[in-house]
C-alpha cells in the first residue's frame, strides 16, 4: 500500500475510539492482508510500537499477515453451517483446490494454492445462518451450498478441474 492511500485511511479516523482496529480493518479490506511494510509505516505515522500493531493483527482473526490469492474463498463454520454440513464443504474445496488444512504463521486457517489463484479460509460466523451452509467468495455470499454446486460456483472465478 502506498503512503498516500494509507494517509487517506488514517485521516478518516480522527477520534481515538476504534481508531487502530478501524485503520487495520481498512488495510485488510483493501489489500486482502496486512503487508509488513504497511504495518511498519503505520507504526511510525501513529507513533505506536510495531509490536503493539503486530499483537493486534495476530489477536484478531479478521486480520491476516499472509498474502492471499486472486480470489478468497471463506467457508462459514458457524453452528448452523456446522450441523448442515460445512465440514464436508471445506473438505470438498480442499480436494478441488489440491490443498490441505494448515494454519499460517499467525495461527489462522488460511491456505493459498501454489498458482496464487485461490485462498481458502474459514470464518466463525457470517450471520447468514438462515442460508446454511454458506460460503463467501470475494464478498459474494453463496447460501444453501452443496458439494455438487461447488464446481459451478468456482468456475465463475476461473477454476478449472
Amino acid at each position, binding site marked *: 500500500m502506498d503512503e498516500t492511500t494509507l494517509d487517506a485511511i488514517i485521516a478518516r479516523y480522527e477520534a481515538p475510539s476504534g481508531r487502530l482496529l478501524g485503520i487495520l480493518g481498512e488495510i485488510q479490506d483493501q489489500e486482502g492482508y496486512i503487508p509488513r511494510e504497511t504495518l511498519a509505516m503505520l507504526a511510525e505515522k501513529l507513533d505506536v510500537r510495531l509490536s503493539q500493531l503486530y499483537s493486534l493483527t495476530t489477536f484478531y482473526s479478521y486480520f491476516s499477515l499472509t498474502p492471499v490469492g486472486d480470489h478468497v474463498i471463506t467457508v462459514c463454520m458457524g453452528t*448452523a453451517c456446522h450441523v448442515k454440513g460445512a465440514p464436508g464443504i471445506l473438505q470438498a474445496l480442499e480436494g478441488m483446490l489440491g490443498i490441505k488444512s494448515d494454519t499460517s504463521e499467525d495461527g489462522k486457517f488460511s491456505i493459498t494454492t501454489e498458482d496464487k489463484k485461490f485462498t481458502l479460509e474459514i470464518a466463525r460466523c457470517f450471520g447468514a445462518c438462515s442460508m446454511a451452509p454458506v460460503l463467501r467468495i470475494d464478498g459474494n455470499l453463496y447460501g444453501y451450498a452443496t458439494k455438487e454446486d461447488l464446481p459451478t460456483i468456482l468456475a465463475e472465478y476461473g477454476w478449472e478441474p
Partner: protein
Amino acid sequence: MKITSADDLEAARQAGLQKLQPGKPRIAVGLATCGIAVGGNKVYERLREIIKRDGLDIVLTKTGCIGYCREEPLVNISIPKKPLVILHKVTEADAEEIIKQVSRGKVPTDKALCRVPSWDHITGCTLEYGKGFTRIPLYAKVPFFQDQQKVILRDTGLINPEDIDEYIAVGGYKAAMKVLTGMDSEAVIKEVEKSGLRGRGGAGFPTGLKWRITRDAKADKKYIICNADEGDPGAYMNRNEMESDPHMLIEGMIIGAYAMGAAEGLIYIRAEYPLAIKRLKLALEQAREYGLLGSNIFGTGFSFDIGIATGAGAFVCGESTALVSSIEGRTGRPHPRPPRLTDVGGGLWGYPTDLNNVETWCNVPVIIINGSDWYAKIGSEGNTGTKVFSLVGKVDRVGLVEVPLGTTLKTIVSDIGNGGANNKKVKAVQTGGPSGGCIPVRMFDTTVDYESLNRVGSIMGSGGIVVMDEDTDMVDIARYFINFATGESCGKCVPCREGLKHALLLLNRIMAKKGTRKDIENLALLSDTIVATSLCGLGQSAPNPVLTTLAYFREEYDALVKP
C-alpha cells in the same frame, strides 16, 4: 433541515408517509444481507430496467427483512386502496409478470405469501393499506407469523432502512422528542426500570438499574456503547435489526444518552457485517442532517453524537472489559471486575460507561412511547417484553422469530418452525451460542426466559436457537463448541486456556473411539473446574455444551468408549 419542534417532526412524518403510500404502486424488494445473497439485488435491477423501459409510474425501493428467511427473496407490493402483498421466492424471471400485473392493479397471486390489509407499527401509527385480494392468505394466518408478536421487528421488511423519513413516518423519533423536551433523567430511568427491560445480550441484567448506576457515577464525562459484535455463531438478529431498522437503535441510544448524561456514544460492530455498517453510517448522517444527533438536539441544548468502532473477529470482545480494550486499540483481554465499566476508572478511557446490546437499545423507544405499563404486560413475570430469536439449523421454517419471553421451546420450534427439515425428527436445540447448552426435545415445555433456560443448564444468550435433528451427533456438537472456545480463548487465565485445550483433546479421543469411561469422567470434572475458576464469562460458560450433552445425551458418549 433541522427538526426543532413537533411541527418539524410532523412535516418529516408526512413526507415519509408520502413515500410509504405514494398514491401509486410501490414495489419494495427485501435487501438485507440474506435477501441479497439469494438474488434480491438481481430482482431489484430487473424490476428497475423494466419500469424504466416502459416508462411506468411505479415507485421501486428497497426494504429490509421481515424475518421469513426461508422464503426470500421477498418483494412487497402496495397498490393504492389494496392490501400490501408480500411475494416470496421471487426470481429475475418473475419480474416481467410482476410489472405486468401491477400495471393492471393486480398482483401475481401464485407468488404471494400473504396480504397485509393494515399494519400496526405500535408507536401510535397504523398504516391502512386496503381491502381485496382475498384469495391471498392474511399475514396473521401464515403459520410462521401467527404465533409471533412483532415489537422490535415492527418496521423491518416494511420500511426503507436507508430513508429516515420512513422511520419517522411510522412513529420514529417521537420518543426521543418526548424525552428531550418533556422528561428529566430520573423520569426516563424510572420508566425503563418499571418496564422490567433486561439486557438482551444474554446476561439479563436490569437495564434501568445499569442506567441509574452509570448516571450516578461522579465524573465529568460518560460514554454509552452499543454492543453490536454479535459473535455467537448461529445468531444474526442484531444484524437484521441494524440492516432493516437502524434508526430504532440510534433513537434508543439518544434517549439513553440523555438519561445518563453522556455526550458521546459508540456502536461497536463486527467488521463481518459490512452492510449493517454501511446502513448505520448512512442513518447516522441522516440523523445529523435532521439535527437529531450533534449539538443542541431539538433545540434543547442537549448534545450527543454516535461514532462507529469496528471489531475484528474476536468472540471474547463480547465481554465488557475486553470490548472496551478493543475500542481503545488493544487486544481484547478481559480484566477482573470490579472496576466495572460503570465505575469511575473502569469504562472507556477510564470514564463511566454504559454498555447495552443492540436489541436492548431497540426496546427503548417503544417503552417510552407506549409506557412501561404497556410493555410490562408483554411476556412473563420478571421477563417482560419480546425477544427476537434466530431459528436456524435443521428446522423446516428457518428465520427470525419474535415472541414474548416465556414462550415455550415447543411453540418456537414445532409451531413456528414446523419441526425438523425434510421430515426428520428434532432431537434437541442449542441456545445461547458457545456459552449455552443443548436442550433435548423431551424438555421442550421449557419456557424461553432467562431463569428457565439457566435451570436446564443453558442460557438465553443473544438469541440463537440452532435446531438439531435425529442425524446430529451430540458429541460432535460438544466438540464443535469446545473447539470454538479453545480458538477464541484470549489466553490470559489458565483454566480457560489450558482447560479447554485438554477438554478438546479428551473429546477428540472419545470421538476417535479411543477413549475410556475414565475420559468421560475426567471431561465432566475438568468442565466443572473450568466453570468454577475461569476469569471471565467466556471460560465460565464455555463447558456448558459439554455439561448439557453429558447430562442429556450421555448414551452417545457411552456408545463411543470401551466399556
